[in-house]
């Protein structure tokens, strides 16, 4: 059965199209305006290469390798006391704070006692492994004054034959700030 189209029907159809057109246009315009409301604060970072604040130097105990720029090192020891495995010398004419922070390890279960210290007249215990687990993983901050030289020493007792690794950062802090640098030191213990 066909429906008779009246003039009112035609008017309603036209009106429907008109309303639709207005909505589409409004949506289009509002979207454009909303997307434009923002601003940018600019930041310029200038970075310059400069000499490191602390220089690592090889000690007289165990064996060691000092890498390029004296900012990372590898140390080899066995069981026993190893004084002077590494030296650290202040080189920028400023005061700093330093500490050791063990961030990774391999096969430390054989380390019955592995203690690593910073020494300059008094001991600062930095890393302690007892019966294969950490008793202390990060040391307290230790003052490294202008032109000072301090050293790292170790006491090692093992419970079995093998090889262990302790991966540590030497962290060097600018006093009264949270600005610090990290040198990587690998301790290889047979």
């Amino acid at each position, binding site marked *: 059965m066909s429906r008779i189209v009246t003039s009112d029907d035609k008017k309603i159809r036209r009106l429907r*199209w008109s309303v639709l*057109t207005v909505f*589409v*246009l409004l949506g*289009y*315009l509002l979207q*454009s*305006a909303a997307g*434009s*409301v*923002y*601003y*940018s*604060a*600019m*930041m*310029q*970072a*200038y*970075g*310059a*290469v*400069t*000499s*490191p*604040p602390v220089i690592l130097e090889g000690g007289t105990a165990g064996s060691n390798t000092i*890498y*390029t*720029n004296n*900012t*990372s090192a590898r140390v080899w020891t066995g069981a026993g006391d190893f004084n002077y495995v590494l030296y650290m010398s202040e080189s920028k004419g400023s005061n700093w704070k330093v500490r050791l922070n063990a961030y990774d390890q391999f096969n430390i279960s054989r380390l019955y006692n592995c203690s690593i210290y910073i020494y300059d007249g008094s001991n600062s215990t930095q890393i302690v492994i007892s019966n294969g687990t950490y008793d202390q993983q990060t040391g307290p901050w230790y003052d490294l004054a202008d032109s000072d030289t301090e050293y790292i020493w170790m006491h090692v007792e093992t419970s079995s034959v093998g090889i262990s690794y302790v991966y540590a950062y030497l962290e060097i802090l*600018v006093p009264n*700030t*949270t*600005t*610090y*640098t*990290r*040198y990587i030191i690998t301790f290889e213990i047979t």
Partner: protein
Amino acid sequence: MKIQEIQFRKSIKFLTLLLTSMLIATTSATVYYMMLEQSTSTVAVAPVYFTTGNDSSGILTLGTNSTYASLSLNAYPNATLYYEQAVNLTATAAKEVRLRHVSISPDDGDSSVSNFTGVVFRLIKADSTQVGTLTYTTTGDVWNEPTTPTSYVAIGAGEEWTIKIEIKAAPGATSGVSTTIVIAVDVK
């Protein structure tokens, strides 16, 4: 085939009218927006601006109204230097912020580029949550820059966030060699 013969020819006419209207509206809206902005511009304090952090002393210079920050950083060869609070962001109204790369120099191909290993900018919320990172690394004399901005993140009125910077020079890097990175903190 003539247009009169097409079924629903009124619909096609309306569609043509609609598309034409949108084209006109786009142009009109752009012009109108620019006029509106000029006529209603007033000097106002930016709702998000730079402030000093724990590590800003001696490295940070703020521009007028604190909407520009200039940082002077060190880079040590073969060691990473961390500025936990190089510069802070303070909000006086609820907004959304993101970090966006703008420019870096020297350009790719300059032999001094290889003196750097990387520079990282981290956007850190007041609760220490990291919400965005821009990472720059090098491959030989070419910079690998961040290609997309970080996502917009809501910052509340009264909150103070920080931008942490990590910078590392290559082993054997030459003292005095420098780089300049410009980033934008977009606020909406």
